[in-house]
């Protein structure tokens, strides 16, 4: 093939090829649609999930049955006031019958069945601690919340009885509290919304991979199979220029997808009932701009690696498979680090992906960034991308990557 022609400055060669690559990348409607769909998918899912959680938490009154409530009308009334949908059932004639009926009631859609044992009132008056049975199905998702409500109502009743019994013995009810526990929650409402936003950096990075996957395969392995890559290589331009142009075009799509995600999320945030959960909307315009800036270098690196990997593959199909695996790996790694709550030393922020994950997390909840580290980490990312581009260029020129054709 041709060697580099010194008469052509990079401006005259790079710009046209960049234009061509960008046009081709953005003309591929299917690739664009994939990027957009994925970008919108998870903000929508996040919003839906939160709405669902809050609805569960705030509105829904769980079905609760009390069996044998006539043995202690006070308890039935106490539960009725407790934000549960209460049905009352007469107790059976014998002990075994009671328990059979309790199980049957649980089958009928009640989250909790409260069984007041026979002789409850007598035992209570003799201060012999009669039994209340709470029947529940621990495998049922709503039973935990229902049990908590029942318990909290019963606790109110117990507090009242305890106060009266202690007073009757000449003791202040306060004396059974040997100490008081004062809880101090040092989190801020915006940091609490970080709990929800925690998965976001990983998802944004995954968005980069997904958004640029189709285009990167098409522009490399695709062009190779269509034999149009060879034509390109005949042009008087350096190999690195070609790889760079392709990378920028591919990265632009990935970056667009991830940007769309974060913007969609910001738009949906007002729909999220964050305050119901004691949280605060933390995304600001500045925060979003920071996120977009932080994503750009890593988008380029991802694109380069995807292109090189696709060029190394045997075929178009093989490239798709390899890249699909390639996009999972970093996300698994990042999620793993997050879930295992591994505390990383600051120097780890110099590693591409790891650094971006940490910065995105901070930027999303409006926490301050260590600018020196961000600059250093970004430089490392760009340097690796640059090296990869140069290496890719050399490989292309040596036709090493075309040998499979």
């Amino acid at each position, binding site marked *: 093939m041709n060697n580099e022609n010194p008469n052509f400055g990079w401006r005259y060669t790079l710009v046209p090829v960049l234009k061509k690559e960008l046009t081709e990348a953005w003309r591929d409607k299917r690739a664009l649609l994939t990027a957009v769909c994925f970008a919108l998918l998870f903000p929508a899912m996040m919003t839906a999930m939160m709405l669902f959680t809050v609805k569960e938490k705030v509105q829904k009154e769980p079905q609760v049955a009390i069996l044998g409530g006539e043995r202690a009308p006070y308890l039935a009334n106490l539960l009725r006031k407790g934000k549960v949908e209460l049905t009352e059932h007469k107790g059976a004639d014998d002990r075994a019958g009671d328990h059979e009926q309790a199980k049957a009631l649980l089958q009928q859609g009640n989250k909790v069945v409260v069984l007041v044992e026979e002789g409850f009132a007598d035992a209570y008056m003799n201060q012999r601690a009669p039994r209340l049975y709470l029947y529940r199905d621990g495998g049922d998702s709503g039973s935990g919340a229902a049990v908590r409500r029942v318990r909290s109502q019963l606790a109110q009743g117990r507090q009242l*009885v305890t106060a009266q019994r202690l007073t009757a013995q000449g003791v202040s*009810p306060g004396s059974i509290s040997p100490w008081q526990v004062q*809880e101090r929650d040092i989190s801020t409402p915006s940091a609490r919304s970080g709990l929800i936003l925690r998965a976001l950096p990983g998802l944004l990075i995954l968005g980069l991979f997904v958004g640029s996957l189709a285009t990167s395969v098409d522009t490399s392995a695709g062009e190779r199979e269509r034999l149009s890559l060879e034509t390109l290589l005949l042009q008087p331009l350096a190999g690195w220029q070609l790889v760079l142009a392709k990378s920028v075009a591919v990265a632009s799509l990935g970056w667009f997808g991830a940007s769309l995600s974060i913007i969609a999320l910001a738009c949906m945030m007002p729909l999220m009932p964050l305050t119901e959960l004691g949280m605060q909307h933390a995304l600001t315009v500045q925060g979003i701009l920071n996120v977009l800036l932080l994503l750009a270098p890593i988008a380029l690196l991802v694109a380069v690696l995807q292109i090189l990997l696709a060029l190394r593959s045997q075929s178009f199909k093989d490239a798709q498979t390899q890249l699909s695996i390639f996009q999972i790996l970093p996300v698994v790694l990042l999620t793993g680090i997050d879930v295992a709550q591994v505390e990383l030393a600051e120097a780890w922020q110099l590693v591409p992906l790891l650094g971006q994950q940490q910065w995105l997390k901070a930027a999303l909840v409006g926490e301050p960034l260590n600018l020196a580290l961000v600059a250093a980490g970004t430089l490392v990312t760009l340097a690796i991308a640059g090296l990869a581009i140069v290496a890719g260029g050399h490989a292309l020129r040596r036709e090493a990557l075309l040998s499979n054709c």
Partner: protein
Amino acid sequence: MQRTACLLLLLVSLVAKAAEPVPERCFLDGWSQPLQCYRLQVGESVSGAELAVFVAPALEQNGLDPVFLLAGGPGQAASDLTPILPALSKVNRQRDLVMVDRRGAGHSGAFACEEFQGSVVADLDETVRLLGQCRKGKDNLVGQLNSRTTVEDLEQVRSQLGYERIALWGGSWGTRTALLYQQWYPASISALVLDGVAPIDSKIFLAAEAAQAALDKLASDCAGDPQCAALGNWQAQLLQLIADWESGGPTLKVIAGQPPIAVTSLHLQQTVRTALYAPEAAVMLPFSIAEAARGNYLPLQGLMQAVSGMMDSVSLGLMFSVACAESVPRIREEEIVSNGRNSFIGEAFTRTYTRGCEVWPVPARDYPQLSPQSHPVLFISGAGDPITPPVDLARSFAYLENKQQLVVQAGAHINTTRGCVPELIERFLDAPQETLDASCVAEIDLPPFMLSEFGFALNEVNQVVVSAGGADEQEAEND
């Protein structure tokens, strides 16, 4: 010349904006969330003070007026109002809640009268002697403690924090402060929520009739419950015990962890009156009194222990400084006699203040002539409140245009935390011009009456506890 003044004013206001105070993060007992805390300088340099200000910031900063919480007493600190914050947490999503410890209270230099701490003084002469000791050498401080200064301070805090208009929540004596604030700075206020109402012209320390009315209300509730009715005529027994213990009653352990002392009729009267502040304590009165009449003093001792700690957080120095300047001078001798004539507490409660004020010299202060106001006002009252009973809106608040009242039939003193009242407060603040549908207030029940050693009966069906007891004991500190 005028232009220069204008420019100067502009410059000053710009500087003032720039110098907006920066909060520190801090916590108060009873509230697990972080607060923004300030120490703000108020007043002129000589008569100035540094006030502790606590802000529970709104989750959504949407510019709605904040709510300033004004505490009772006078002598309670706003920072002691944390027990009501959980009830106002929904309000807090949209609005800052601001607690300003007034001069002489809480974290703004509590004027506490250590002389009274950790003991129950149920002897008027002893009370007066200790008060005299506490008052010594405090002329300068005493002179600063009054409603006018408090409102001026609050107004400065409001402007320093950059709020244009504020809503007020007042509890007990705090309602008086709120009503005065409304008179003096109507433009600074958007709405008022007043719980346990002390009208500006009411004589709040003339409380024997109100205490008796609360006891009568309890008696009629008890009579409506067959099992409580079976306890007999405990009201008559109470009067008999008071008469019998005039010359000394049984020896009881009135404070946990301290040796027993011989109680007096004043102990008994104070215990009954204080228990009436909180329904959870009040429902124990019939049984405790009936038992005492039979010679079993244990339940009464339990009640005495329970109420003994209630006054601990009140700054008595602040309380007497304000009461002796603004309220007590307006009480006439014949009023004390007639007010106490048919009450179990007699003249004892009021005399504590009139006698106390004899050793607590402070110039009398008058309240302003009431001028008509149009802010929306929500009044909240408990039918069984022994100190600030439900008010006759037409008579006491003819000067207010826009008012409505919630009366909690099963309630006593302070009802902000009970049943649906928190939601009604939230709705009122959101749409203060609308009339609230207050039917849910009727669903608030009295706790069941104590009937025996085992507590209340389980076949009590109409009476259910509506809120946990802990918070109520705190609130009962207000006067």
